[in-house]
């Protein structure tokens, strides 16, 4: 690979890559996402390689391992291009037939395509399957098309053109103004305007500044950041470099999970390739701008995703948050101005620079712009990674994309934002996916984990579950969080065991109030959210547990359905 030292050379290279690709040549994209790999996609992939070799088709058919396609529920997923025929739940035994019939014979195999369980209608192409058809896939849409380990694939899809535009056609101030006008809001949980944060870091005194990708993704039930970063690392990296240029930073950090080797490798490879091409390092694209990136691994504690705690761990210290009045954009890593954004926030940047803030601001609601990635899980037919414009009604996500509730059960609630979020009852299912609308109802969106709950899940137990999680994840530095969570957990555990007392709910509310007010960081301050939202919308379930010793969802083991603790307890 040769270093590129001007925009002309970048375009030259892009042309060269494209000219070597034969548009009509069939190629097969295997989903390499965690879900499909768990379902045995590695065996499917070997079967394809084997069959291609047996039939000596190496020159005629391309094979590509891609990032997560999105439809994890029906994995292993295989897409055959150029037609974009999508086969689901593929097994190694299907492979010879797929090669003979579809790749060579151009015929669709009915048995392997998506069938709508209600209408029986078949959808052979990816873009016809309701799960995909009803989404707007600006960020994740390239996942089935590119090999994350090939920078050439990203360039072929138009990659790094936004970086070139920013470096050569725009001043840092203009880049910043675009992001502000687009009203890009942080995707990591807070929904804070990215442009304002960038501006603070830019204006903060000091020569040395840092930009950071938060790829910790500690929220249980969230897997979209991993899907995006593993599947399209250059998109995040391009956004980061543009942000560094706007802010005036020359050093970046990626803070990511230690427990996902594939994610780690893809990031390392992307950094190395970008460096070789001169898209990273000294004098990027000959612009005179220098920027380097270092990868840091978290070691699995939820609080280390919080901004100041994350910065402490990059310094090699224990991840304890600092009080919020010290802003990390002014004084972060080693007390230098440090701008932290979530994976998905950074990934939005190239698109905004390429298409302009006016285009971007045309998508979404009044105050929530663009699309949002959602990790759809729980009791819903089609689980997976979903991307929709902000403002999409929740109903559309659960039914239009998610395909409704399996096993003939009824929808009871949707829960957003994991342990720091809240639940909304079925009656509020028309609420739009919007930062402010959801927060107002007590179910802040968080990073985008959307858990669908049916009638078999006990809401009291769910609140208990989140507090149990947080009790293990709190750093223990401040008393309101450490003790408040423990005491709330104790009482809720008692209630789910049929030992609830009159006055428990009032005591819980009091503890929730103190923890919310007095904790040091957002972990403690939001810890009471799941309890408060479930109490608000499902008070009858709490009362059934306490007064009648009954669990309406039949989920708490120690309680019976008709009331009264079980005899053997």
């Amino acid at each position, binding site marked *: 690979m040769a270093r590129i030292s001007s925009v002309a050379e970048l375009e030259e290279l892009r042309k060269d890559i494209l000219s070597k690709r034969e548009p009509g040549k069939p190629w097969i994209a295997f989903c390499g996402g*965690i*879900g499909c*790999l*768990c*379902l045995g996609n590695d065996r499917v992939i070997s079967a394809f390689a084997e069959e291609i070799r047996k039939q000596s088709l190496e020159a005629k058919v391309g094979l590509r391992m891609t990032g997560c396609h999105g439809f*994890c*529920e029906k*994995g292993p997923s295989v897409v055959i291009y150029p037609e974009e025929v999508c086969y689901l739940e593929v097994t190694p035994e299907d492979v010879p037939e797929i090669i003979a019939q579809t790749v060579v014979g151009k015929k669709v195999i009915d048995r392997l395509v998506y069938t709508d369980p209600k209408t029986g209608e078949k959808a052979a192409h990816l873009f016809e399957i309701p799960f995909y058809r009803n989404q707007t896939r600006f960020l994740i849409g390239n996942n089935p098309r590119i090999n994350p380990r090939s920078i050439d694939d990203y360039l072929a899809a138009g990659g790094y053109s936004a970086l070139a535009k920013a470096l050569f056609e725009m001043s840092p101030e203009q880049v910043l103004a675009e992001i502000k006008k687009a009203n890009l809001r942080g995707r990591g949980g807070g929904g804070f305007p990215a442009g304002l944060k960038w501006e603070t870091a830019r204006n903060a005194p000091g020569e040395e500044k840092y930009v950071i990708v938060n790829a910790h*993704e*500690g*929220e*249980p*039930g*969230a*897997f979209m950041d*991993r899907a995006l970063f593993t599947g399209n690392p250059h998109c995040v990296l391009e956004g980061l470099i543009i942000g560094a240029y706007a802010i005036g930073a020359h050093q970046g950090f990626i803070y990511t999970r*230690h*427990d*996902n080797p594939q994610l780690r490798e893809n990031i390392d490879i992307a950094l190395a390739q970008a460096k070789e091409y001169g898209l990273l390092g000294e004098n990027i694209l000959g612009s005179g701008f220098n920027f380097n990136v270092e990868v*840091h*691994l978290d*070691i*699995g*504690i*939820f609080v280390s995703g919080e901004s100041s705690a994350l910065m402490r*761990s*990059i*310094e*090699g*210290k*224990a991840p304890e948050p600092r009080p919020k009045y010290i802003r990390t954009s002014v004084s972060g890593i*080693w007390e230098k101005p440090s701008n932290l954004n979530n994976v998905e926030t950074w990934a939005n940047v190239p698109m905004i620079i390429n298409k302009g803030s006016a285009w971007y601001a045309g998508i979404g609601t009044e105050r929530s712009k663009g699309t949002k990635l959602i*990790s759809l*899980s*729980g*009791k819903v037919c089609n*689980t*997976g990674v979903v991307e929709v414009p902000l403002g999409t009604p929740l109903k559309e996500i659960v039914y239009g994309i998610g395909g409704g509730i399996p096993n003939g059960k009824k929808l009871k609630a949707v*829960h957003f934002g*994991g*342990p720091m979020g809240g639940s909304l009852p079925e009656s509020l299912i028309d609420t739009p996916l919007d930062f402010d609308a959801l927060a107002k109802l007590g179910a802040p969106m968080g990073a985008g*984990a959307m*858990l669908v*709950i049916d009638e078999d*899940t006990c809401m009291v137990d*769910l609140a208990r*579950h*989140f507090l149990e*999680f947080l009790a*293990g*994840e709190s*750093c223990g530095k401040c008393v309101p969080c450490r003790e408040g969570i423990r005491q709330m957990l104790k009482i809720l555990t008692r209630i789910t065991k049929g030992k609830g007392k009159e006055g428990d709910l009032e005591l819980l509310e009091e503890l929730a109030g103190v923890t919310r007010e007095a904790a040091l960081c957002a972990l403690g301050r939001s810890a009471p959210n799941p309890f408060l939202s479930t109490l608000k919308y499902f008070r009858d379930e709490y009362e059934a547990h306490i007064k009648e010793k009954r669990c309406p969802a039949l989920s708490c083991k120690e309680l019976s359905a008709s009331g009264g603790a079980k005899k053997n307890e």
Partner: protein
Amino acid sequence: MDNDSIDQIIDKQRGKPGSLIQVLMEIQDKNQWLPREALEKVSEKLEVPLSRVLRIATFYKTFKLIPEGRHKIHICTGTACHVRGAQRVLDTVQDLTGIKPGETDPDLKFSLETVNCLGCCTLGPVLEIDGKTFGKAAPAEIADELKKYE
């Protein structure tokens, strides 16, 4: 774990500010757990007080200060797995191995741990044995699987 490999890991990271956590992780990656002697060596060579090394090593539950079993079982108790019956999976594994989360059996065969979310919630409930993931885990299948380990 021999001194040379610890030295190598430390030398690679030395001089970089903030290298303590990375060094401990690499040692654990190689040795499966962090023996006291290794921690003392890290403290000495990185010139970080032993108290701070111990603070980091005990803060994270990822760091192991006692020997690990030959096979590591991770059971996801994240929310998505929780609503899909993670407790049943945990009960089954506890019954079969006789150990609780955080424990290792006396023969050093299995170590059991609960984890928060493995990122494959769509397959819940999920468990992982030696890095291999099993989705939609049913008690009978788990029993069969565990028999395969020596």
